[in-house]
């Protein structure tokens, strides 16, 4: 992969297409892991690919495109969760109701996801555990790749995976889960 190709060229557009096709599911699943909202996950996914596209020249190729994209995703989601917008999400929930008619497919997906016991259990864990669990078990990244994505050590990833598994097992055995309100 060339690093000096500008993002405004046709080859770059074709490359973007391939990224979206190959890594779109990875990006949106990780985004949903953080945001617990399908609509927001789509927004962030869009932002991630457009950012990657516009900053393609800065991609040095010292990590895989996949880990690069997932790293952008993790950062964008964290930024969002720290943002003013996130803290005012409650205010918006009532308004989202009237959107339902226009986004029935989206709501169906959201409902399916919410009905999934494993998702519910994962989403009830603190972020530092759910991010590694999803990246490792669902997206199939290695410990080293996860360390790159999350900008941490591989040892830290292993520790979090171990603790995350324990917590997840406990949640699944409990049956019912309640979300961590601190995300």
């Amino acid at each position, binding site marked *: 992969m060339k690093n000096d190709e500008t993002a405004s060229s046709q080859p770059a557009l074709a490359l973007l297409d391939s990224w979206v096709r190959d890594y779109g599911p990875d990006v*949106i699943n990780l985004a949903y892991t953080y945001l617990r909202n399908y609509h927001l996950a789509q927004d962030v996914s869009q932002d991630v690919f457009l950012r990657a596209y516009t900053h393609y020249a800065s991609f040095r190729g010292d990590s895989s495109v996949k880990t690069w994209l997932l790293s952008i995703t993790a950062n964008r989601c964290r*930024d969002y969760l720290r943002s*003013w917008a996130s803290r005012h999400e409650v205010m*918006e929930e009532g308004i989202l109701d009237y959107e339902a008619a226009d986004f029935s497919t989206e709501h169906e997906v959201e409902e399916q996801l919410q009905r999934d016991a494993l998702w519910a259990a994962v989403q009830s864990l603190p972020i530092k555990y759910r991010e590694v669990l999803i990246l490792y078990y669902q997206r199939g990244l290695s410990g080293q790749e996860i360390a790159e994505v999350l900008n941490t050590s591989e040892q830290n990833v292993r520790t979090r995976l171990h603790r995350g598994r324990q917590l997840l097992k406990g949640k699944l055995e409990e049956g019912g889960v309640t979300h961590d309100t601190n995300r």
Partner: protein
Amino acid sequence: MTPTDEEWRERFKNMTPVPFPEELAEKIRQQAKEQPKLAKSRLRESVSHRIRVWKTTGVALAGVAVAGVIVASVFPFGKGANQAPLHAPLQAPVQGPKSSASSSATSGTTTATLPGTAQNQTSSMAASVAGFGLQAAKLNIGPVQVGSGPTWPTNSYVKTNLTNIGTQPVSNKNTFGILYFTKPGVNVTSWTQSDSATFVNVLNSPTQPPIAPSSIVQWSFHPVGAPHANDGSLTEVPHLAFYQTGLVNANQADQFWMSAPVQIQIVSVQPTLWANHQAQTISLHMSVTNSSLQSVKMHNLWFIIWFSSNPSADFTQPNVVRFLDFAPSQQQGAVLTPGGQLMVNLQEVGGANTNFGAMYPHVAAVLR
């Protein structure tokens, strides 16, 4: 019994996947295709403005231009987000008509024509802007701290040292800044994610000489309206960024402010001089329409408002009056469904000497 690694993997394999819809892929593709338009543009050459008729009512704003007190270095954030420039461009003391503008745009940027000069003319220029690419100024910014100054309450100033690390003098002609605030412990990568933000100048006063290469200057600003305690002291962490004037290709940009997928139509612009003649409030009435296929949350929008004598001047140019703002608090929770529209009123505070009625208003919406 504890599941094995393989069992965990199997369980996760069977969990409901979060689908990546084809519509989203298509939307990304379409937005990416628009990027080259931006890449080719310096705003002066091709930033999109649709110029529409500006209807004038002919009501004079008597006394605006003769206000003798300059609101030097103290400009409100308004709702925590807007700001008049340190020194608004001085206008000839002519009568400024009370104005209303009718304009429309296909992107987040809109411009209205000069009142009284282009009535009944309608013209349009290029189409869409996907965002604004900016290059960082050649300045090293020292620790940005809250401190005290000569006039205002203790700890109500933001202070730092600026070092010119480039080879050219730095002044308000080639540099502008953004001061923004976050809660303690919160790290953001851009002002767009902050609680409040305002444009600032790089020089403390118009009489300050440009910052020569390798020289260091003290920078100080008193942001009225930024989050503060009852005693006036600032309560959030200040951050400062300076950019070079002019827009650049997205690939050359140090920061890219993504345009929001909305159309903005300025309905009216009404400047009102304060009773004490120290400043004026500019009421800007506009419609915001979601031009995308997905819902747009109002709280995700920042509005960049600028007034210029040149109709094609972008907000980075040295002689424009610029503000940052977001929708009023009662509209922050609103969500625009595709095609949905909301009327928004913004109130900015500008220098008393600026004849806003004689300048071209522009509004662009960028995403948080």
